[in-house]
């Protein structure tokens, strides 16, 4: 769904570094890393995007035509005006830190923990940045494209119980 043009115009006038594009009837906004928090704050308080639908990430390693390594994706919704918007923030190693959006939306807490767990992106200011799905001692970030599909042997790293060890 296309975002209301008034929102996009107001935002691009306020922030210089934004790129706006459309894809199959959806509006996408690419924000630089430094402006991410300010843009989302403005979207929440000035334009009524009161719901953070999802935070996720894409690893563009070896992708054709990709210039950046990670694309962090924020899916926003305005439940009053029935409006939706996708905000992307591109990240490159070694600067894989973005401000946490927990001060804006409480729901970002577990979503950001999942992105941290799977992609190793850290969220500055997150109240409780721990792994959410994998065990704490897991050492890798498995949804990165350079992580082997079958893992690095974590699934076999257990003691073998024999019959007499019960």
């Amino acid at each position, binding site marked *: 769904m296309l975002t209301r043009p008034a929102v996009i115009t107001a935002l691009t006038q306020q922030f210089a570094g934004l790129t706006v594009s459309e894809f199959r009837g959806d509006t996408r906004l690419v924000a630089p890393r430094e402006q991410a928090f300010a843009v989302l704050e403005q979207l929440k308080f000035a334009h009524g995007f009161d719901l953070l639908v999802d935070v996720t990430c894409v690893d563009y390693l070896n992708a054709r035509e990709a210039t950046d390594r990670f694309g962090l994706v924020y899916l926003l919704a305005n439940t009053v005006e029935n409006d939706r918007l996708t905000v992307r923030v591109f990240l490159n190693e070694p600067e894989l830190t973005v401000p946490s959006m927990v001060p804006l939306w409480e729901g970002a807490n577990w979503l950001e923990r999942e992105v941290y767990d799977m992609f190793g992106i850290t969220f500055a200011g997150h109240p409780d940045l721990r792994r959410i799905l994998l065990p704490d001692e897991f050492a890798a970030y498995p949804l990165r494209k350079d*992580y*082997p599909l079958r893992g690095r042997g974590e*699934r*076999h*790293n257990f003691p*073998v*119980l*024999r*019959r007499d060890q019960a």
Partner: protein
Amino acid sequence: MAVDLPDNVVVTKLDELASWCRKNSLWPMPFATACCGIELMATGASKYDLARFGAEVFRFSPRQCDLMIVAGRVVMKMLPVLQRIWQQMPEPKWCISMGACASTGGVFDTYCVVQGVDRFLPVDMYIPGCPPRPEQLIQAIIDLQDKIQREGTIFGAEFKQTQRQQAKRALIELPVIGQASEFRAAQS
């Protein structure tokens, strides 16, 4: 030497008597982590009626069970739990690996799914299928009963045989596709 026994006296071996009691009162521990667990429930329900084989008493405390049924895929976060539950079960105890996932990892050849619980636990019976039908589970329980009757001893001497102490042969000898070098190092 003919001894006259009254009709209500039976002579048997103590081992066989113990095995006979054990095999007809298996109490399963339903370790149902995925879709195979649904078939496990169906097996316990009235249509297939596991009670016919004395194994209907599903207990959710490992302290009361002697038959572990691993029904479903086990991920690396769950395996320590599985091992702890196995260790909490009192002897003598047996283990059934139900379904493709529990036995081999099934189609889930990914970084987090354990490729067969028999790599880390002693397993007595494997059931193929995805999911196995209740008949297959019942057949496995009948086969396990035969096994208990055949080799069971009252003090569990059959569990102490050296052949059973060895780590799984597959784990040591067979190359596993995609096996990382870290694992090899950890084993040796």
